[in-house]
């Protein structure tokens, strides 16, 4: 496929639905609460009773504005709510309140770091407010509808079709997720569906300017699956074009068991949602004074944390970038430093050892078997010379495999570094006795042999001797 990948170019645009971290719903005072007993958070408004009127949740709008600020969007001082009409059992009113012609913000951007180290900026077309639908549970004898989620506040973030491969799309999503988490805008929980992604994908021969027919991938609930699904879809579409088969406008979904995309529905023409302005709501006015107030209380964004890490912890721009890639990672690092009191060593351990292993295991930072305080503890033990850096890697490996504390592993495996002069001297004596030729050469001026003796002593002590002391004592003995 790689040759064909060269011949073609993929065009990817992403739509993200992010649930806002409010206490109550978007247009009524019912609780915005995950996992409540079925149909407990419902009222006349969110069940679509005739005559019930919506009211706008101020906090939801504030959180949406935070997202707009963080994504460099142009905010509209007066935006309009609109009805999106369609029939589905989880939509009791027969329409969803959304925004259409005049969303509250447009023309934003987001900068991401690619694995090549290169930074790339992708455009955000628009963000608009809308309410979530309820949930259909399919049972054998029918469909059971739970309206707890109906009316929960969402923002939909629509990107420009700026991404060209799955990695760029994945990094866009991670960066967006990170910004929403940093801003306390959305909790980002993908399993609960609080951050959902749809991807529009088409392929065209390189150099062509016209877009190919796009296929929509829906409901993919992890970054990795989005990347896999996009890769699969690009190859599938290239294959079809090569075979002169027409690409049909479809909605497909990712089957993570089979590692393929599957048809959900054919899309003959665009949906006829018959949008019109919501007559029950006045225009949404965002004054500049309000905007300023929101800016004043904006939580720290990734760029700011990155700068702070450089100043506060003396990290390089690159390391600070790696460690602030997600809020969870930045918090992990900060906690590790708090325990270890060694910002540089903590950065090395988190950025290299820990992230490397998490990556290989396909885990995110919040699933790390090694907790931040345990890593901090390990670093303290290195700094106190209780263990050498080399032994520490063995200990860390064990910590990662078992989640146990470094102290327990060191004690159990007898890995404590030997810093006792007597014990080290005994080992040196043994090495000297066993290597008379080298001793003679050394004394004759072949000082390079020092490294040989140090190595032998380390071997004799199974790597547990304090290397600095070995170095010093070997010299003293031989000179």
């Amino acid at each position, binding site marked *: 496929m790689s040759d064909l990948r060269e011949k073609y170019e993929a065009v990817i645009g992403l739509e993200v639905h992010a649930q806002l971290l409010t206490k*109550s719903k978007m247009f009524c005072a019912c609780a915005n609460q995950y996992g409540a007993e079925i149909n407990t958070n419902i009222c006349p408004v969110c069940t679509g009773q005739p005559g019930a009127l919506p009211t706008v949740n101020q*906090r939801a709008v504030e959180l949406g504005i935070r997202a707009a600020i963080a994504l460099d969007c142009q905010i509209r001082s007066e935006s309009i709510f609109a009805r999106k009409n369609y029939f589905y059992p989880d939509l009791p009113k027969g329409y969803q309140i959304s925004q259409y012609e005049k969303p509250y913000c447009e023309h934003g951007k987001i900068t991401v770091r690619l694995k090549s180290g290169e930074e790339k900026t992708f455009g955000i077309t628009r963000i608009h407010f809308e309410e979530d639908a309820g949930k259909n549970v*399919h049972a054998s004898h029918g*469909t*059971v509808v739970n309206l707890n989620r109906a009316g929960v506040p969402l923002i939909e973030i629509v990107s420009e079709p700026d991404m060209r491969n799955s990695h760029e799309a994945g990094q866009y999503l991670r960066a967006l997720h990170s910004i929403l988490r940093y801003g306390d805008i959305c909790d980002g929980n993908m399993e609960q569906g609080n951050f959902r992604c749809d991807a529009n994908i088409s392929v065209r021969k390189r150099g062509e300017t016209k877009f190919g027919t796009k296929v929509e991938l829906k409901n993919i609930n992890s970054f990795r699956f989005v990347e896999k699904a996009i890769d699969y879809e690009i190859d599938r579409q290239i294959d079809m074009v090569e075979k002169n088969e027409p690409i049909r406008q479809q909605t497909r979904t990712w089957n993570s068991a089979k590692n393929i995309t599957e048809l959900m529905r054919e899309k003959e023409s665009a949906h006829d949602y018959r949008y019109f302005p919501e007559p029950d*709501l006045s*225009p949404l*006015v965002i004054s500049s004074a309000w905007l300023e107030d929101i800016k004043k209380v904006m939580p720290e964004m990734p760029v700011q944390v990155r700068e702070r890490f450089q100043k506060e912890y003396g990290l390089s721009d690159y390391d600070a970038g790696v460690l602030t890639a997600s809020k969870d990672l930045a918090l992990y690092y900060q906690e590790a430093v708090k325990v270890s009191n060694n910002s540089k060593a903590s950065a090395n351990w988190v950025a290299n050892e820990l992230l490397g292993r998490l990556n290989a295991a396909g885990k995110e930072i919040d699933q790390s078997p090694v907790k931040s305080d345990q890593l901090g503890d390990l670093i303290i033990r290195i700094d106190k010379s209780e263990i050498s850096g080399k032994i520490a890697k063995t200990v860390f490996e064990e910590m990662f495999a078992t989640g146990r504390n470094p102290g327990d592993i060191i004690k159990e495996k007898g890995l404590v570094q030997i810093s006792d002069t007597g014990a080290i001297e005994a080992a040196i004596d043994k090495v000297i006795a066993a290597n008379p030729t080298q001793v003679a050469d050394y004394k004759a001026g072949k000082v390079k042999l020092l490294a040989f003796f140090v190595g032998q002593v380390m071997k004799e002590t199974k790597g547990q001797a304090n290397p600095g002391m070995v170095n010093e004592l070997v010299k003293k003995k031989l000179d």
Partner: protein
Amino acid sequence: MLTKEEVLKIARLARLELTDDEVSFYQNRLGRVLDYMTELKGIETREGTGVRHVPLDSEKFRNDEVVTFPDKEALLQNAPALEEGGFLLPAIMETE
């Protein structure tokens, strides 16, 4: 008058099944609604014409506080059927 196809499209979007008689009935009836809207468009609404313009107020906000609706039973009672607290409906068929 709407065309037969236009009526059938609207009916499909509304998930309604219409007989041929009903289709011609709605061709006429919906056509009259549209005629009326066209007539409304002709009304002069600019200032000074005597037709009052009601300015749209900006939307008043609600504080983000939870108020539990006290009579959920009443909401559930409107359902044709319930199962373990959920609205029970015929199985969903994907039509699009």
